Every structure is written in structure tokens, then in C-alpha cells.
């Protein structure tokens, strides 16, 4: 097999490997009482969330409320590291009263060998959220994170049916 042919065969693979990858953020609950990945990403938020959850447990009818938090999250792979995008459902600001949109804190971290490094911290990303009992159940509405291995950028967009609106914020993956 000639070198030219080998190059011709590899070229599409190479191009494919460089294509941007998009994932929708998925709802995930996490324990507020142990040291899991999401709790490590949000050490500044967890104490307040835990206090609130314990308050809820103390109110009539709230005793069965678990000590859990909610994040919207996805992961990418980058040069052997796991890149985690995490939007926390706490301290979110209203977005004109839209039922599925809030401005929430978002972090991107890299995880390698158990070491966690914060790559980006956006306090007010406009995200599509849903009730905990129906997390991101609708395929029509979602927040999409896209990792471009060529530019090393993670960008975001909200999708509502056929409408996709890109957000201005981005995070550079080092």
C-alpha cells in the first residue's frame, strides 16, 4: 500500500477526530454529605445547600427530603484528562419568569489522577432546567455544551425545538 493511499485513508479519520463534540447537559443528583465529584466542584455552595435541605427536613411534610443537590452536567475527554462541565441548581437568578430558563453558576474543571483543576467559572450561564422529578426530560429544550478540540474551547447554546441560540460565554481548556 502506497504512502499516498495510507495518507488518503487516514485523512478522513484525522478530520473526524478534530470535529467539535456536542453534549446536552443532563440532570444529576449528588450527595451533599460526602466527597463526591460534584461536591468537590462546588465546595463553596454545598454548605448553604445542605443547611437549606436540613431546614426543609425540619418543616412539616419535609422529613423525607433527601440531602441531595442537583447539577446539570456532561463530560469531555481532552489529552487524557476528563473535562467536566457542571451547572449547579443553586443561587440561580430569574430570567424574566421563563419556566425553563435560569441564570445559574457554571464551572468547567479538569480531572486527572484525582487532581481537580477549575478551568472556568461563570456565575450566570443561561441554562435550560427542569423539575427534579423530570430532569431534562424534554428533548426539545436543552442546554448544549460543545468542545472544539481545534480551538480548545467549550461553548454553550440553548435549544428550544428547532431554535438554537448560542451563548456568548466560553471556556478555554488548557
Amino acid at each position: 500500500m502506497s504512502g499516498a493511499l495510507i495518507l488518503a485513508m487516514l485523512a478522513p479519520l484525522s478530520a473526524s477526530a478534530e470535529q467539535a463534540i456536542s453534549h446536552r447537559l443532563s440532570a444529576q443528583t449528588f450527595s451533599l454529605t460526602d466527597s463526591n465529584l460534584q461536591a468537590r466542584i462546588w465546595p463553596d455552595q454545598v454548605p448553604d445547600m445542605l443547611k437549606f435541605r436540613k431546614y426543609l427536613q425540619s418543616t412539616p411534610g419535609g422529613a423525607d427530603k433527601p440531602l441531595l443537590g442537583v447539577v446539570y452536567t456532561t463530560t469531555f475527554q481532552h489529552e487524557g484528562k476528563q473535562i467536566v462541565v457542571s451547572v449547579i441548581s443553586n443561587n440561580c437568578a430569574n430570567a424574566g419568569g421563563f419556566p425553563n430558563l435560569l441564570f445559574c453558576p457554571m464551572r468547567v474543571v479538569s480531572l486527572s489522577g484525582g487532581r481537580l483543576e477549575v478551568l472556568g467559572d461563570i456565575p450566570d450561564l443561561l441554562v435550560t432546567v427542569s423539575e427534579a422529578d423530570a430532569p431534562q426530560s424534554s428533548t426539545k429544550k436543552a442546554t448544549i455544551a460543545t468542545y472544539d478540540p481545534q480551538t480548545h474551547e467549550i461553548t454553550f447554546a440553548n435549544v428550544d425545538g428547532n431554535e438554537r441560540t448560542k451563548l456568548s460565554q466560553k471556556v478555554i481548556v488548557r
Partner: protein
Amino acid sequence: MRASTLLLFPIAAVVSGPQLAFADCQTVSASDVAQDIQNCPSANNTLKSNACNFGGAAIAESGGNTCASNGNNFGLLQLTRSNLTNTGYSSSQYLNLSAQQQVCIWAQQVGNSNTSGAYQTLANSGSINGTPVTAGMLAACFQFGPLICKNDLAFMRANGGACPTIGNGGVRATGQSLSNGSANLDGNNQSICSWGQSIQNKINQAAATCNASNGAGGGGTNCPGGGTTPGGVIPPSPGNAPVSLPANLA
């Protein structure tokens, strides 16, 4: 019900229209809501020092009905569906909670985030290009959230104090206008001025029942009728409405 909300129905329809079967619906006053805010461990100082104003906002939002809902926004202060995510309560469970519980969840979910940014800017401004900042306007700013409030402020500064409307360049909140940051009206084409006036009217109406003792630290001016004129009613003009600043800004 509205401002905080993407209101698809007029408030009257929400309050009096068909509702799910809730055994424990309560109808409360602005004064009751103010007291609930004071009693709530999750309410920050900004909320507590403006408790009566948010009491007025609750009446404007829900008519004081704990079961008020348009299907997307719920309860006394019209917490949005997405705000419920972190509470573990479904919307129907939330509507069945007491007024005190609803207020505390509202305070915890949006109290810090919605009193940041533009809210603080507005609270620090006696007027915007000649348009007085009212307590109602502040409450509307809170309910809309930082983006719309910030954009309303920018519009007022650029247009001689006039608020945006759908007829003068206002941008209604949609998924797209929120995402690109251009929205300066809520989903019902309300600005902090127009919805602020609606809330202000409720604050004024509540003057007879909302007093300094349940508003903030006694003798404060945030409660209509409180302060130096106990039992008095503030004039209805927004320009004469009392505005209190958060303690750290006063």
C-alpha cells in the same frame, strides 16, 4: 401573578380561575408575607429590610393565594418551575405548602441571586434620569432577575428616564433575547416601571395592614405607614414611595 413570570394569563384569571384541588390553600395579606420573610432563616438582609415591599409584590403576583399558578409559576411569589429544581418539591407539592414554607423556599432559591447586580445598582439610585426609583420598581427588578433589570436601567439612562415598552424599542423576553442578552421586557411585555407600578399600587393598598413591626427593624421607612407616620398611608405617586436601601448600602 406575573412579573416574575412568563404570564400567559391575566392575574385575575390566575387567582380566580380553575385550580388543582388543593386542600390547604391560604389567602394571606402583604403584612403576613412580610412577617413570613422576617421569620425565615433563609431570607437575607436585603429581603428582610424590604419585607413589606415584597409583601406587596406577593399580592401583585398572586393575590395572596398560596395556590395561585398559571402552570409555569407557582405560589405566593410565583416561583418559576425551574426554581423548584433544587427543592425536591414538585410544583403541586409546593402549592400545598404553607405560606411560611413557600416564602422561605422562594427566599432561599432566588434571594441572593436576584438581589445582586442591577438590583443593587437600582437600590443605590434615587432616580434614573429623573424617573424616581420606587419600592415597587425594586421588587419588579428582583422578580425579573438581573438581566432584564440591567437592560431596563440602561434603556432608561439612554432615553431620558423612559422605560422600554413594546412600542419604543423594548425587547420582549424570549429564549433567544435572553440568550443574546437583549431582553428588557418580561414575557408579558412588562418593564420594571410598568410592573413596578402594579406592585407599588399593592404596597400602597397594603399600607393599612403592613406596619413597621413586621417590615424591618421597627421605625423603618420600607413599610407603608411605618416610620415617622405610624398608621399613615403613603401617597400613591411612585415618586413619593419610600425606598429603603439594604443595610450595607444605606
